[in-house]
Every structure is written in C-alpha cells, then in structure tokens.
C-alpha cells in the first residue's frame, strides 16, 4: 500500500534529519585534537566565529604622522582623515569589519579585533610607508619620481594564467598618469620604491590604459600577498611612524559572550517548550527545524568573512532565533484557522502553507531590503551587521518554509484525522468566529461563476450581482456547515451580524 511506502519514506526523512541535527549540535560543542579519530585538529565551528573588540579584544597599534612642510593645517587634517578612512577600508576588505581606526591630532590608533599578536596588524595593513614609481635603470641611478602611492586605489593578489600576480588598481587620475608613464617606458623597467628602497622593478610590456595592471614574477601566493600589502600601505597620503603597539583585552570581558551563549541555548529551549505547548506535533516539527536553523546559522557565521560578532551582533543573532519560528507561527495559525473552518487536517496543512506564503514573503522581503541597504550604504560596523542579518533571514526562510514542511509531512504520515488534537487542531465553532475567510472563499467561487454568467458587463448588472450574492449565500451555508454543525441554517445571519457589529463571537 502507498501508505506504507510513504511511512517508510517518512521514517527515512526523520532518521536522516535526526542524524544531521545531532551531528550539527555535537560538532558545535566538541573539538577534536590532532590524531583523535584520525581527524586533524577540528575546532568546534562556533569557536571559529570572529569576534569584535568588545568581546574578544585584539591588538592595537598607534601611528603618528609628520606634517609635511608644504601642507597647511587644514590639508593635514584632511590627509589624516583620509588615511584613517583608507586604513578602515583596508581592514574591512580583509574581513575585519569591526576594526576601529580613530585619529586625534597627528595620531592614528588602529585597533584590530580577534588577533593575539600585534605583529599581525602589520601583516594586515603593512608598515605604512611611502611608495614611488620611478624608471629603473640600475641600482645606483636614482631617477625622478613619476608617480606616488596616493594614486593607487587598491592592491591585491590575482591568479591568472597559472601564476599569482599582484594586481594594482588606480584612481581615475592615477589611471591617466600610469598610462602616460607606461607609454614612455615600454620595453624598460619600472621601479617600485618603498621608503626609498627598491621593492621590485617589473618590465613594462605595453602601455597600460585600463586603470588596472598586474605584475607577474613567479610569485608564491604569500610573496604576492606581502608585496600587495606593502604597496597598499604606501597608498596612504601620509608617512606614518608606528609609535606603540600591544594587545588589548575585551572591553566587555568574557561574561558577555558566556551570557550570549547561555541566552541562546535557554532561548531555544524556551521556544521549543512554547511551540510544543502551543502547536503540539506541529510545534515539534518547528522545534526540530529551529535546531537545524541555529546550527546552520552559527556555521555560516563562522564560514563567512566580514562577520565579526559584537555585542550588537549577539543580540541580533538572539533575536533572529526568536524570529526564525515566526514564519512557522504564521503558518500554524493559518492551519488552525483552515482546520477550524472545516477542512481536513491534511488539506488544512496544505492550505495553511499556501495561504500564509504571501505574508511571509512580503514580511521577509522588506527585512531583506533593509539588510541589503545596510550592506551597501553603511560604514564598516553597520555593513558587517547587514551581512549577519541577511544570512539569518535567508536561512530562516529556508528552515521554516522547506525544512518544517518536510518534517511536518513526515510526522503527519503516521497519523490520520483522529489525531488532529495532537496538532492542537480544534473545531471550535462556539469559540472561534474567524472562519470568515474560508467562508468568503466559497463565496468567491460562486461569485466568479456568477460573474462569468453575467459577462459581458452591461448596465443593470447591479441586479445580477444581487443574484450572485444569493448564490453565494447558498454556497456559504454549504461550505461553512461542518464548522458549525449545531447552528443549522443560521450561518448567514451569523456572518452578517459579525460583520456589522464588528465584534468576535
């Protein structure tokens, strides 16, 4: 019998899901050291999530800038602010969305979260330096400076034709200048000098006009990366001297993180209890997909760069755990309503998912709009936050619309109509007066039929519409009957009085 088949399938679905969920939970808490179970050093994935300065501390470095003599105070302040911002952008690009760069007077303070060694800051932003482009003829000859690092917008590593190359991106002005320079230097060598010392001297093969150029030289990835960072660090408008650097502790301390983890776990437990109490077996399905959601969310937070959890981020994650069951609550309420209006348990479930989709999609699209705007418009912290929010919404849609549905279907295949009470489904005509919509649907169909008859539209259709209403009423009684068996034919009056009085029965 197909019933047996579907039950076998359901058992398979539930088993697979349980295994995945258990593994997800176990791997969230267990770390494996080298050699155990033949796994190489596995770290529990939530521990991989990068944390902001407030939760994990990090390291700081302070730089001072000398005011060049030909610079007015105003220009100097602007240059400091420009440097501050490029440092911030640079760190953001490297995934440190919560790094803080502040300036005062001629001092710039860089605080980078989640690193233990201040030296790492230099790996990230380089040792800020001057960068000059000159023609290279020999080591002894110093030619005039053709261009400085200020014209470089970005430097990075690309992989092209089987080797790592350094890619330079110029500002609009820089692109023009660079085109002129390379036109003059075709066949010659272009020297790139950092702090007056030659960093490299690539051959110029052709005039480069596109605003970007790549430098090849059989680099390893690490070499290319180091050189790119060095060049990028030379793109700051000022010479910076590092004066001070050290590690710093978290501003909030361990307690905040611990509180966050416990709050998350307790929150999930409370939601599970609440959902099961409220929606019975439907709540069980929602709870299972909530666990699935929590694991995948945490996993994605660990995997994605640009995610650096701060106090605000933790609160966001905690809220999103609560919101993740929102779609399920909407759906379950709808199923209850549909069931209350006389549909069978299975049809009510089907309809519940179908009819609540509009509200869920509309609600989430608006939130997604917000998240995307934050990612595009915001500054570093806000941008990182937008990313966290977006991941949460997309995953929660997946878990509440798809995972819950599959689980609910699997669970329901073991029951039949008599077990509706396990799903907290009741037909309470005396208590619940809200089957209007389901009733109205019957009317809708009758109305459509009547309208088809009535077409084409002619003046006087008023009367026909009245007729349609009559038909509708008959349909209504028929449709609504199972919902209020004891009320006999009083349905129409009931509906009307409800509408005019506006109260609930």
């Amino acid at each position, binding site marked *: 019998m197909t019933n047996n088949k579907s039950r076998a399938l359901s058992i398979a679905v539930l088993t697979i899901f349980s295994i995945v969920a258990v593994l997800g939970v176990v791997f969230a808490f267990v770390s494996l050291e080298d050699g155990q179970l033949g796994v190489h050093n596995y770290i529990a994935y939530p521990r991989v999530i990068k944390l902001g300065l*407030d939760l994990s501390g990090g390291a700081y470095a302070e730089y001072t800038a000398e005011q060049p003599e030909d610079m007015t105070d105003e220009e100097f302040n602007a240059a400091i602010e420009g440097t501050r911002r490029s440092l911030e952008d640079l760190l953001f690009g490297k995934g440190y969305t919560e790094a803080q*760069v*502040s*300036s*005062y*007077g001629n001092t710039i*303070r860089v605080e980078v979260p989640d690193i233990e060694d201040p030296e790492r800051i230099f790996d990230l932003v380089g040792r800020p330096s001057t960068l000059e482009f000159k023609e290279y003829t020999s080591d002894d000859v110093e030619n005039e400076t053709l261009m400085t690092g200020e014209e470089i917008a970005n430097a990075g590593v690309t992989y092209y034709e089987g080797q790592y190359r350094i890619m330079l991106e110029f500002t609009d002005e820089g692109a023009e200048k660079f085109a002129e320079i390379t036109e003059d230097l075709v066949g010659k060598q272009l020297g790139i000098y950092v702090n007056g010392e030659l960093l490299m001297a690539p051959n110029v093969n052709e005039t480069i006009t596109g605003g970007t150029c790549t430098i090849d030289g059989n680099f390893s990835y690490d070499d290319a990366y180091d050189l790119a960072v060095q060049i990028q660090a030379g793109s700051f408008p000022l010479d910076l001297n590092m004066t001070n650097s*050290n590690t*710093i*502790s*978290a501003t*909030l301390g361990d307690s*905040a993180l611990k*509180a966050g983890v*416990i*709050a998350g776990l*307790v*929150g999930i437990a409370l*939601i599970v209890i609440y959902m099961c109490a*409220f929606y019975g077996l439907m709540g069980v399905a929602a709870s299972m997909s909530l666990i699935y959601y929590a694991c995948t969310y945490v996993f994605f937070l660990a995997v994605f760069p640009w995610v650096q959890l*701060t*106090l*605000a981020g*933790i*609160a*966001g994650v*905690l*809220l999103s755990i*609560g*919101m993740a069951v*929102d779609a399920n*609550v909407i759906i379950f*309420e709808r199923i209850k309503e549909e069931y209350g209006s006389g549909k069978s348990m299975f049809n009510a479930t089907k309809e519940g998912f179908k009819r609540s989709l509009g*509200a869920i999609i*509309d*609600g989430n699209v*608006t*939130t997604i709009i917000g998240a995307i*705007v*934050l990612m595009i*418009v*915001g*500054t570093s*912290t*806000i941008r990182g*936050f937008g990313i966290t*929010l977006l991941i949460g919404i997309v995953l929660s849609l997946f878990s509440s619309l798809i995972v819950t549905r599959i689980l609910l279907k699997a669970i329901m295949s073991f029951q039949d109509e008599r077990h509706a009470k396990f799903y907290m489904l009741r037909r309470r005509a005396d208590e619940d007066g*809200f089957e*209007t*919509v389901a009733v109205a*649907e019957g*009317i809708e169909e009758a*109305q459509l039929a009547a309208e088809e008859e009535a077409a084409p539209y002619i003046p006087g259709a*008023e009367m026909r*519409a009245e007729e349609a*209403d009559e038909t*509708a009423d008959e349909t209504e009684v028929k449709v609504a009957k199972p919902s209020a068996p004891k009320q006999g034919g009083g349905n129409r009056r009931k509906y009307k009085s409800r*509408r005019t009085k*506006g*109260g609930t029965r």
Partner: protein
Amino acid sequence: MKIKMTKKNIAKMYRIWFVIPAVIILAAMIVFAGFAIKDKDINSGMNIGTDFAGGSIVTVVLGEDKIGAQAGFDAELDKIVAVLQNDEIAQQVVDKAREEYEVTLPIDAVKANVSYSQRSDSGANMSIIVKYDNISSTYDSDNSLTNLRNELIEARLEEMYEVTEDNASMVTMSNIGATASREMVKSAVLALVISLALILVYVVIRFEPWSGIAAVIALCHDVAIMLAFTIMFRIQINSSFIAAMITIVAYSINNTIVIFDRVRENNRAELKLKPNSALDNFEICDRSLKQTMTRCVNTTVTTLFAIVVFAILGAASVREFALPVIFGLFAGFYSSVFMSPALYALMKNASDKRKAKKRASGTYVGQKSQAQKD
C-alpha cells in the same frame, strides 16, 4: 493558552493608542531638557558614547612590583576610575575655568564618564586602558579644559602608582577622536532613510499606498520610542545602539506586514461579497488584527525569550545594551498591532470619502473599474 479578544473595535480606539506613545515621547523630552538645563549643555540631554563624541584615553602600565598577588585588574581599575571622578580635580578645573576663561560649569560636567576599559599585558607588566569622555565642547571648544583635567589626572595617577624613571610603571594620556564619527551616524541615518523609502515603495506596490504610509509611520514610532527610553534611562548611545535600532526596524516591519496581508485578504473577500458597497475599513482592520493577534503575540514572546535571558545573565554593560532592544520589541509590537491598522483605516476612510464624493458627481463607469481594480 488562548488569547481572549475584546469585543470592542481595537482599531477604532485609536485615540487611546496614539496618546500613550505621545506621553512617552513627551516624558523623554522633559528628561532631555532636564539634563540639558542641569548641565547647561544641550549635549548632556543624551548620554552619547565616546565612539561618537571622541574622548580621552589613559593607559596605566603597572610594573611587576605594583601588581600584588591580590590586586587584580578590577581592583586597580576601580582605583583609576575613582581618580577620574575625583571631586578635588573636578573642583580645580571648575575654579580654573572661572578664573581664566570666565565660564562657570557645573562640577558634574567635569567628571569623567568611563565608556570602557581594557587590559593589555606585555611580559610581567599589566596595562590598564580606560576610555572616557571629554568635557563637553559647549564649555571647552579647544579642549584646553579637558587637557587641564587630564594633566591633573595624570599627575594624580603617577603619584598614586609612584611612577619614577627607574620602574616600569607608566601613565600615558592621550586624546582620542571619535571612531564612529559623524560619518557613521550619517551613513546609518542614510541607510535607515533609504531602507524606509524602499520598504515604502515595496509595500505600496504589494499592498496599497495607505498601508505603505502607515507601515513607515509605525517604524518611525519604533525608532522614536526606543530613543525616548534610551534618553529616560540614560543609556549610552553608541554604535551598538545604532545597530540595535536598525535590527528593531528590520523585525518590526514583519508584524505590520502580516496584519496588512490579512487586511488585503479580507478586503478582497469583502469586495467579492459586496462589490458595490463601501468597505468598513475600521471593521476590517479590527477583524484582521484580531485574526493575527495570536501570531503577533507568539512571535514577540519567542523573540523576547533569548534577549531577556541575555539581559538577566549579562553584566551591566550587556543589560545597558539589551534594554533598548527589549523596549524596541515592545514598541514594534505596539505599533504594528495598535497603530498601523488604525492609521491605515483613518487614511483609507478619508480617501474613500473623497472618492465617494467624486463618484457621486462622476460617471458610472468609474465605479465599475474601481470594483475591478480591487
């Protein structure tokens, strides 16, 4: 649990629903004004964090000899904070300000508010880093008073820790600019405005113009209420707070949309039933919000669970942050359930009346197309 619903028309009681937030906002304005007047400084109305306003940073390095077995970070931090808020130092600054700059400033405006502290270890030494606010620019446009205060604090700290050339202990003091700067606020506000505009466009397309306007007004209400509570409870406004506000806006819109979705559905059903009669907007809104009430309550409760636990377990700084979020959740629930349907019904009624007037003088065809449109 079954939520017992009143028979009264909730949407129609809008007068009550609009008064409550107005009272809260008014109260916050009074508190704001009170603090501003007390310190004679408009910036004191709100508790603005150093990541917006900038501030000073003091680093105290303690050599091995200073770190006793029992004196840990917390104990030393308390000592330093006590110096930062020392009455004598504050009084000296107030006196000097009166003599040299002829400004009288309240003593509370001089005392430093610590925004956060950090610890930094290198070898056997321990450094304590404390960030605190500067004297408001209302009194101190060129930071001369702040610098004076910092010098006094530095001297006092050096005395306290017996800093000499020979030992490893050290006190350094520096000013620090705003990390979150004006630009961050600007971009956050810009992001908020653009999202609101886009949400408005989306809701107008998917629903009706009136739903869009009502939803956006409800969101503005949430932001205003959160800000009002933050002012009243003197909670620090910093970049985390901005992020919290945005989260609330992002989630509150969900509640509103769910109710409007139901309004849309009920409107359609009603029009099918009686194509030519005017809609009773208040009745439909009331019915819709009662139909979705259980869901709104449930979602708000599940969302509250974790964040309330977080606030209970967390230290003071965590609570300070979680509280506005909790206020925001309540504000979001309130505005979605009590305000936006009522606003929608009010606006829709007004527009229906206008249309009816037009229709009375217009042609019959207009009526038909109207019925079809919906």
